[in-house]
């Protein structure tokens, strides 16, 4: 279950924090990680690794010109994984006192002895980690210097710009601005250390438009690792207002089969869904419709997907993956053919495929897999030109629901958007569903616009898909 009321919070990046904290080098000290590993070994662990995450952030929410909330957050947490032979267990805590950490180590070793052996699970060996992570800037001192009064001003300006766009912007859910930093440290019992510092700042606007027919909310946000990459609050506020305004006066459509253009943000969510089906973990556990499809066509021949962790200041960039491997580019789909899966050590071993260095790691769970940054290449035509070319279609500007059924390979989502006829936008439409077979859908992506937003981690330009089924309660 979920609510769509403040999509801002869903969309915004992890609120990491500024800091006085990160800047002054506080966080989880390296000596504590070393101590934790020593304790794990003394407790009986054959191998172990530890990850520490320190985050600090400030966030301000403004509504109708006044501050609604001003929050300051700081958090430090460690996660320890221990192996006893082929068996492993994880413990995590934000209570870093020695007595607590000692108890955790003992608990982890005791727990590991009780679970089943899992021979493919292991920590990377020192020789595998010999390649040093490439230098990759993700940190900007200018973000650390952002004062909360600055955040208030940005949020106010974004809200004002939204209100100034049109008299029908009558209310808002608020506008937010945040700035933060984080530090991740990873250390193996073998002594390999990885460290990453990053910053992030964001402005989110959530205006509400109203006319005689009803109320509509929409949102827009800008986020960046570097202050100089952040769009102006005015640009964010105006874009959000335009998105809310164009929803006003939505009509129903009758049920039909039509070409559908997914506007860039919606197309990005579709691509993100598809990428989830490429998880080596998911495929190893036989719960993806793409199981056994390596080497075969899984998307339109114009589509190529490359996981690229190496863009300086990139939203999804990472210099090393969750198992400590130096990051590198990894091609998943080449000209529509599935050539690689998202894998970590365990899933690559289970499947007998190339190791993709796609591990993710949180403090309280074993490594998983996930993409870093994937950008679908732009097409050669503007969205307007693409719509003109298609003539009659549904331009989907927002979807609701939890995405696709990746086991069955079925796409079915609530949707709203704009009805296009004669190559031009005619009127907004709402309370629709869009559905189709996901495999067929991916192969029917026959057109791309040139409106990719490079500031998002998984990002696609608007995509044209033929032959989807749109259902609605309108009369034909």
């Amino acid at each position: 279950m979920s609510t769509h009321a403040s999509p801002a919070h869903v969309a915004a990046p992890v609120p990491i924090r500024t800091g006085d904290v990160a800047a002054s080098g506080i966080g989880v000290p390296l000596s504590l990680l070393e101590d934790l590993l020593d304790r794990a070994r003394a407790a009986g662990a054959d191998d172990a690794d530890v990850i520490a995450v320190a985050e600090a952030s400030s966030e301000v929410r403004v509504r109708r010109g006044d501050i609604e909330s001003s929050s300051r957050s700081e958090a430090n947490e460690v996660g320890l994984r221990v192996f006893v032979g082929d068996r492993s267990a994880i413990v995590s805590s934000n209570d870093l006192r020695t007595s607590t950490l000692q108890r955790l180590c003992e608990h982890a070793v005791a727990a590991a002895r009780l679970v089943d052996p899992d021979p493919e699970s292991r920590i990377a060996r020192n020789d595998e980690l010999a390649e040093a992570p490439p230098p990759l800037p993700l940190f900007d001192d200018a973000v650390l210097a952002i004062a909360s009064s600055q955040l208030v001003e940005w949020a106010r300006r974004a809200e004002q710009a939204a209100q100034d766009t049109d008299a029908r912007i009558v209310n808002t859910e608020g506008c937010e601005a945040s700035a933060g930093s984080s530090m991740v440290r990873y250390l193996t019992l073998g002594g390999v250390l990885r460290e990453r510092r990053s910053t992030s700042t964001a402005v989110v606007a959530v205006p509400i438009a109203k006319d005689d027919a009803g109320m509509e909310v929409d949102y827009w946000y800008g986020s960046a690792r570097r202050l100089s990459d952040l769009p102006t609050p005015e640009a964010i506020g105006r874009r959000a207002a335009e998105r809310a305004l164009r929803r006003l006066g939505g009509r129903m459509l009758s049920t039909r089969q039509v070409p559908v253009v997914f506007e860039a943000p919606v197309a990005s969510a579709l691509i993100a869904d598809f990428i989830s089906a490429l998880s080596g973990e998911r495929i190893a556990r036989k719960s993806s419709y793409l199981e056994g499809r390596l080497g075969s066509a899984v998307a339109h021949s114009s589509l190529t997907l490359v996981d690229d962790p190496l863009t300086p200041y990139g939203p999804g960039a990472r210099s090393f993956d969750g198992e400590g491997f130096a990051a590198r580019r990894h091609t998943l789909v080449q000209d529509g053919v599935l050539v690689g899966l998202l894998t970590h050590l365990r899933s690559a071993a289970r499947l007998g495929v190339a190791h993709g260095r796609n591990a993710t790691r949180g403090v309280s769970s074993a490594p998983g897999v996930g993409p870093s940054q994937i950008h679908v290449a732009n097409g050669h035509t503007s969205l307007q030109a693409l719509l003109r070319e298609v003539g009659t279609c549904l331009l989907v500007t927002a979807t609701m629901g939890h995405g696709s059924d990746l086991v069955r390979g079925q796409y079915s989502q609530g949707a709203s958007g704009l009805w296009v006829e004669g190559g031009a936008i005619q009127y907004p439409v709402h309370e629709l569903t869009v559905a189709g077979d996901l495999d067929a859908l991916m192969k029917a992506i026959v057109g791309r616009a040139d409106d990719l937003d490079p500031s998002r981690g998984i990002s696609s330009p608007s995509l044209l898909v033929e032959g989807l089924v749109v259902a609605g309660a309108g009369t034909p």
Partner: protein
Amino acid sequence: MKGSGEFEGSVWATTAAAEAGRSVLAANALDEGGLQAVLAEALAAGADWGDLFYEAWQGETVAVDDGRVRSCSRSARQGVGVRVIAGERQGFAHTDALRPEPMRSAAAAARAIADGRSAQAHPPLAVAGGRGPTSALPTPPVPSLYAADVDPLALPLDQKVRALAQLDARCRAADPRVQQVMAQVSASLQTVLIVRSDGALAWDVRPLVRLDCTVIARGADGKLARGSARDGGRRGLEPMLEPAALDALAAEAVRQALVNLDGKPVPAGVFDVVLGPGWPAVLLHEAIGHGLEGDFNRKGTSAFAGRLGQRVASPLCTVVDDGTLALDRGALQIDDEGTPGECTTLIENGVLVGYMQDRLNASLMGMRPTGNGRRESYQHLVLPRMRNTYMRAGVDDPKEIVRGLKRGIYAVDFGGGQVDITSGKFVFEMTEAYLVEDGRITAPLQGATLIGDGPSALERVVAVGNDLGFTKGQGVCGKDGQSVPVGVGQPTLRINGMTVGGSQV
């Protein structure tokens, strides 16, 4: 913000909760008096309201997949969140360092919100002293809604490991088409202390357990299908891990996966829909629940804003949000602001009669708090949130409701849902459903998303069954990036004219 007058002095959820909590504090060289002093510092510049939320949380998760019980994780977090309210403004800061200096620093950061308004008349609010813990604790104001004396983390890990292995084996033995079993048992214990500027102190110790089982089956055509089943609540794990309980859970997950293997493509269009009892009430949570939370109505951003006293549903519908269902996942003896749990009526015979409120929104709207002030953890601000939202039983025979369907869909299990509060549009996702023709169930259907309009959906309820059922321990509600456990419930009901996101024209 004015006090509601409900609290005079100290409030205790139960004496046992307070004792357990105090020992957690003592382990950190803390006591209630020290936390009151931190709050007093936060309120030094004056405020309408302030509170301090101390939380200690511990959880353990064990999972089986690929036939191996292999993912075992235990986590602990603790910290303090300090909040100061001045008018509509909230200052908030939290820290995981339970030492005087970081806590004072958090208090100062929260206070800054009131500092900025020093020109305005908000007299300093002293924390009532001397009303803290004494040897004579007041009688608990509410009965215990959670399984008494249960520490769900106390169950030895090997028992969980054994149960998961049995569950895996039972699912695989049930049918050769079962390809994969993923099951997980999780247990947690949350200890909270709320220290308020009106002098009240409230403790609560909340157990929460859950057992999930998902089965993937493969048909002769190579297609995959999924089935799932779960159990849980604010109680102990042992009864859920009994052999008979595991048998029942495995049988249900396998049954649903096999039904879905035969699922036919879903027709697209507008259909009359019969929803089964229990979890399908995710409809209520999305269609009307979120829209009746106090914050959206105070700000006028909900499609239900300003509609108190108006008809918003068929007269057959009475909907409540209840924090007092014993052992339920949504049960709350007190909310995260110390307001006692209650059963709040939202819609009575089709008429909107109440909103769900935390203290801030209740105060600003001139209403009373309803025990819906919740937060994911000490790191999050309080929001008005649901507990267990359900529709009261009607009089119809559920079989007759299905028989009355000329051509439509009978949906008995769902995934999740989502709502746009402002436009009122909501979706929810069927995971077990059937085509009904001339009153007879004729074929299972694949999953699909349904979309509707919240403010009008319940107007189209034409039949309400006599078989009120509740979800079995599932339900996670997300709002503003915060997740909290919730329950839902409803009897079998029929709604006319829902749009079904099928792939067949």
